[in-house]
């Protein structure tokens, strides 16, 4: 696999390709919400999106050795997800056969957690989060935004902000911590 700039997940992917379940779980946790959201925009069905997201990651696991790194990992996963969605709707019987995991030889363990934080997806909450990010200390906001919104690497952010990479890493972490604390407090207040 190419270790190019397309693949921030290079190390995890390599491990997953060697059968490391923990690395795969990390990748799946990282991309699950994005895959789900993408599928929802395609299917407009929560149930279908859940089924297809799970099927997507089963397929990703089965095929991860074929990922060569020519594109970003998410692009590759997204392609699998959309192909599954297309097949799902193309098949007249698909509606009757949810989560039709063809690999009868695989036993699936669901490690699932409740999600009270899903409230953060609410429109109002999103606006509040954005407003909170705007109010972060400038150094944290810049590092976080360059990373999350612009997809810049730590090295690029270090160059842009003229700070050491270690500082960039620390700032992004602190920004995330601040955001999660804010979300936690928001949810507590609203519940």
């Amino acid at each position: 696999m190419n270790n190019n700039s397309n693949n921030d997940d290079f190390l995890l992917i390599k491990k997953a390709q060697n059968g490391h379940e923990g690395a795969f779980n990390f990748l799946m946790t990282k991309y699950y919400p994005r895959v789900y959201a993408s599928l929802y925009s395609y299917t407009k069905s929560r149930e279908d999106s859940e089924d297809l997201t799970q099927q997507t990651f089963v397929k990703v696991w089965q095929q991860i050795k074929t990922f060569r790194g020519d594109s970003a990992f998410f692009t590759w996963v997204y392609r699998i997800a959309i192909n599954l969605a297309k097949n799902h709707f193309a098949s007249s019987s698909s509606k009757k056969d949810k989560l039709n995991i063809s690999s009868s030889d695989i036993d699936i363990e669901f490690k699932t957690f409740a999600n009270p934080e899903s409230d953060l997806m609410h429109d109002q909450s999103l606006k509040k989060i954005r407003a909170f990010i705007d109010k972060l200390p400038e150094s944290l906001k810049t590092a976080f935004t360059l990373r999350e919104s612009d997809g810049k690497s730590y090295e690029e952010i270090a160059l842009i902000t003229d700070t050491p990479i270690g500082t960039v890493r620390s700032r992004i972490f602190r920004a995330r911590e601040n955001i999660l604390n804010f979300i936690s407090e928001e949810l507590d207040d609203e519940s």
Partner: protein
Amino acid sequence: MNHNLEEKLSALFDGEIDTNEVDEILDALEKDASLQKKLSQYALVSSSINNSNNIQSINSKKKSISYGFWFSNAITAAATVLITFVAINQFEFSRMGEDISAKNKLNIAMSSKEAKDIVSKVEENLVDHVMHVINNPDLDNSTPYDVDLRNVGYNRLSSDGRKFNKGEKNFILRIEKKNLGINKVRYWRHGDKIIHVVPLADGRVVTIYGNIDAQSAINVANSISK
């Protein structure tokens, strides 16, 4: 929680970590639920920020996802489904009537050392339970007669309260106080049916044998766990 470890987790999320630190984080993640929660929160925030239009439309109809059978206490983590794969060995395949091609497919899907280790640890009593269900689906002294699954859309087919259907889906239900040594959902395919074995947090085991999919079985078990 280890502050330094959390910072490393954040860096790994961004793919900005040294090779020699990855294993440390993955090992910690495996054992630490709060770290898993943190990772899923990072993912949710990232997705929310970058896919806000999609996320908003999801939530216009969104209900809370709640599986969590095997957590006796409610773990408050973000929306995350971690799926790992546990292989079934050939012994089980032959007993379940699967053909050898299943083993070949399995070898393609799972070739890791971890998988092979797991294969070697398949528990005999669990297999015996599944075989018992297949061979004696009606031999059951434990399941209550008055189980009501209408809240998840299933009607009772018989007066004994153990057979249910919804459209073309039908299954036999067993609820037993039984220690099978599992803390996760397991399933086996048998012909055109699937046997789902779901451990509940209160120590009971729900076995669902029929032509229903994993998600539906989870919904049924979740209903019973409430």
